[in-house]
């Protein structure tokens, strides 16, 4: 499947760089872009720890996001 192939080919760092590039092209303020980048880095760190080797983006589900939210609330 095309989605899975794309996700597998790129590392999380690459997605992040692409996403940040998009934000810059959207003319967001530098501080806002920095904030988004930092927030996502934190998420990716948690995601890779929680999911271990299967930390592929296409595995992301609403349950994963809810878990992340609860993790943040508790810490």
């Amino acid at each position: 499947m095309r989605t899975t192939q794309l996700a597998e080919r790129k590392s999380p760092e690459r997605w992040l760089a692409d996403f940040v590039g998009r934000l810059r092209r959207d003319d967001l303020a530098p501080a806002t872009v920095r904030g988004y980048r930092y927030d996502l880095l934190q998420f990716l760190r948690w995601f890779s720890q929680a999911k271990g080797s299967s930390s592929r983006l296409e595995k992301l589900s609403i349950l994963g996001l809810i878990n992340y939210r609860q993790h943040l609330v508790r810490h």
Partner: protein
Amino acid sequence: MKAATVNRRLKALRRFCRWAQQNRLIKSNVALELKLVRTTRNTRPMGLTEPEVHSLLRLAGESGHGLATRNYALVQLMVQAGLRVGEVAALRIADVTARERSGLVRIREGKGLKAREVPLNATARRALHLYLDSRSGAAAEEPLFLSGRGGAMPTRTIQAVIAHLARRAKIDRVRVSAHTLRHTFALNYLRQSPGGICISGTVYEQIRDKLALDYQDLGEQEVKNIVRPVRAFRVLPQPGATAPRNIRRVTRKYVRPGIFLIAGPASIAAAVALVQHLVLRPASIPPPQTPALALPDKPSIAVLPFVNMSGDRDQEYFSDGITEDLTSDLSRLPGLFVIARNSAFTYKGKAVRVHNVSRELGVRYVLEGSVRKADSRVRITAQLVDATTDYQIWADRYDRPLQDIFALQDEIVLQIITNLKVKVLEAELTRVSRIPTDNLTAYDSLLRGEECLRHVVYETNKEANRRARQMFERATVLDSQYAPAFAALGATYFNDWLFQWNINPPNRWTGPSSWGNGRWPWMILSPRPIRY
């Protein structure tokens, strides 16, 4: 982690998921249904009190490494003009226009890419002048505030400087960041000139049912930089207040916390935006005066530079030395709040009314004086003025032979301090014992009641006695610890008996229910006789 931080992280994730789906990294946008954490916002905006601001300013003015004027100007600019930290960091020398009677800073790129011009009051202009004097050779396009290394002062450094000053000032009541100074500015504006805030019809529609304020319709107004006339409303924070002048008289002496409880961040933002941006200026709306700083709770004093009357500029050091020593010695007195030397020295060489000094620096007492030296003698005069009333409290003259100049200076300083300590405390005691409540409406009710009471005595007026009782009851409800009001209330019952208007006074208080909640002050000691 704070709810706001959690939500910020989740919002970033939402945006990311939307993008990831658009780029087919994920099949569906899984974050669409992710709920944010619910928050109950603390709607009370936090700002610094006057004593806190002044200790920040004092410490800023005492900064080492030649940074005193820079740090002082930095704090003044943020407190007096309410700039954002990023805006301050981006300022260049050319952006500041500070003339004798007016001034402004130009913000080239504010939040949301908005350019604007912010007016500067006299205090901010003086602080900037003082700082810019030290940068006289600098080019117009150079950054306004330089870091110790010489480059532009970065946002982080400004934040660190403010945080450092706040730590040294031992302010732990609120967390002090650079943005706290912006809040302080807005709160101060609300506090000082509630009549000066105008909002547009659109804002009015949004907030009329949310903020319990009174609004006065000013009709259509021509507004700077806006083509069509704008419907404007004046905000009257005190319910029922119509004349801003009266509010100012009251708020000059007392902080009215009620205003802040009502005014949430929305109106703070409105105040900042409106003060800085939407300057309404048709003739029908008087321009807001420079807000008078609220007076601190403890006795406060500014030592103005002693005037050198020797006719010899070389003797300037002597008069300045006297002033400096007085300032530093006074600041050691517990319970006395002393204005920073830098603030006071901005008045050097200028003929100013002490009343204006009090307004601008937020002090009750002003010490001023002069120094004359001739041959081998020196004559020093000093006078202490209650600047809010312009009354001279104390004055003295010291005439001494000029032998050891420093010993003489010490002697004079000691004498002045000793006198001042007593005089300031005496004046404070009189003031405090006159108004032993911090609820100004209660005090006002007491005064009205006492006025009625005089009619009772001189005219045997039953109706006046009833009115007086109403006023005293109101005062006791507003402040259940207000001894003079209870004493006066008792006097109205005594009148009933004395003039035989009611020979059956209640054997039990039938006052408002708040008296019965266990806080009924059976034993209140009144420090003051009733004026009767």
